[in-house]
């Protein structure tokens, strides 16, 4: 199971600046990985390229090989659920039978139970984020890219959700986009630090602590990873 980016070149429509230039990277095996880098560096762009959702007008070259992967989902924090159902009805409508139990656990853990009967437009921002993420998690996928999907959720809830994801999907690939370096260092297996095209290689790999709920990372270990990430970016 891997995704292989080969010599990716990418420019957005109407612009001449390359977001990616001859960029290659290989994501191997399952795991909870991060896409990290300063705002505007190209995380969303890369995520969309991987998910095959890049803009039609953009110019793209290079190739992406996949092995053992058929469904790649991309979710982002601005997504909305239609307002005609309550959150619970929405969940039910898109939940395959096999994921019922998982759905229940996710709703519980994410703290959405009290607002499960509300319409989407009546949720707080973080509640909206979580509702959206959950409906993706109960789908069938091999790779899930979460573009700031938990950016507006408090840290305690976020940790619960991430740990649940890690335990429930041990054999899937996640690409988690976040600006929180502590979180990325602590939870992710591999951190793909994206850098401006001037710096080569454009994607640098840092290994994270990959916390799964058992043993909290020591302060030193975490700081070391964070420093590595900072140096890389």
């Amino acid at each position, binding site marked *: 199971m891997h995704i292989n980016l080969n010599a990716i070149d990418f420019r957005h429509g109407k612009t001449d600046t390359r977001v990616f230039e001859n960029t290659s990277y290989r994501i191997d095996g399952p795991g909870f990985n991060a896409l990290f880098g300063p705002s505007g560096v190209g995380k969303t762009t890369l995520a969309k390229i991987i*998910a095959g*959702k890049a803009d039609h007008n953009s110019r793209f070259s290079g190739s992406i090989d996949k092995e053992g992967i058929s469904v790649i*989902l*991309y*979710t*982002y924090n*601005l*997504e*909305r*659920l*239609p*307002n*005609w159902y309550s959150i619970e009805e929405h969940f039910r409508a*898109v939940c395959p039978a096999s994921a019922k139990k998982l759905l229940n656990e996710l709703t519980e853990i994410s703290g959405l139970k009290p607002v499960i009967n509300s*319409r989407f*437009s*009546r949720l707080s921002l973080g509640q909206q984020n979580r509702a*959206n993420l959950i*409906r*993706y998690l109960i*789908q069938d996928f091999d790779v899930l890219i979460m573009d700031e999907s938990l950016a507006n959720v408090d840290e305690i809830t976020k940790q619960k959700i991430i740990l649940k994801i890690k335990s429930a999907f041990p054999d899937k690939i996640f690409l988690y986009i976040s600006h929180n370096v502590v979180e990325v260092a602590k939870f992710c297996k591999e951190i793909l630090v994206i850098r401006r095209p001037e710096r080569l290689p454009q994607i640098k790999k840092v290994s994270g602590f990959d916390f799964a709920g058992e043993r909290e990372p020591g302060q030193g270990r975490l700081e070391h990873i964070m420093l590595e990430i900072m140096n890389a970016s």
Partner: protein
Amino acid sequence: MLHKRIYQFLIIYFLGLSALFIVKYSLELSDYVIPSPAEVWSAARQYFFSFFINSVNTLCVAILGHMISICLATAVAIIGSKTNWIGSFIKIGAYNIQAYPIVAVAPIIFILFGDGLSSRLLITAMICYFPLLLSFIGVFSEPVAHIEHFYNSTGQMTWWLPIKIRLFENISKLITVISGSATVAMVGTIVAEFIAADAGIGYRIRIALYQSDLAKILVALFLIGICTSLYLFVLEYSGTRIKKKLDIPAEGSQ
């Protein structure tokens, strides 16, 4: 709400009437060109009741025609908003048929449908559905990326879902358009009656027109205005209720 609508209509009507009388007296026109207030008043007293019955008759047909139009416009817009060849074909078909004046196609309609209520309804619907269609196609053709993304990505997008999403997203625009098109339904019915029927206020207008009887026409316009305001009010009121029920945030697009 209702009394406000009626009230506003009355102001407009009497403003128009006054303007007409001002033209009459300043140009010293005879009662034949523009009837005197006394004549309008006597026409009103004489015909108010029977015209009222006629207007209500027209209103009923208009309401029926309006419903048909909404269904028709929805159906055509749904197909026409699809980006495939059939969609664009249906759209062009709908547009082209619209470009034909009803009077020109009326003979064909009568040949095919006879001259009962069905022709009348068809003409009403043909006149009324197009303004709806335009808005509907506009709304149904425009993706709501942030909502549709999920269904597209997960392969759960059905033929019908984008329509539903775009409909919900634009519900207040659509309600505005639908309630506003009530007046087009009314005018469509009147035109249908003008061409085809022997009942309804359109038919009475036609007779008055042949007799150059502007006084009667003015009475008819008054009643048409009242009926239209009434229907408009009912639709706007229902629209507000629907929006409340569907829990559409008052603030607009969230």
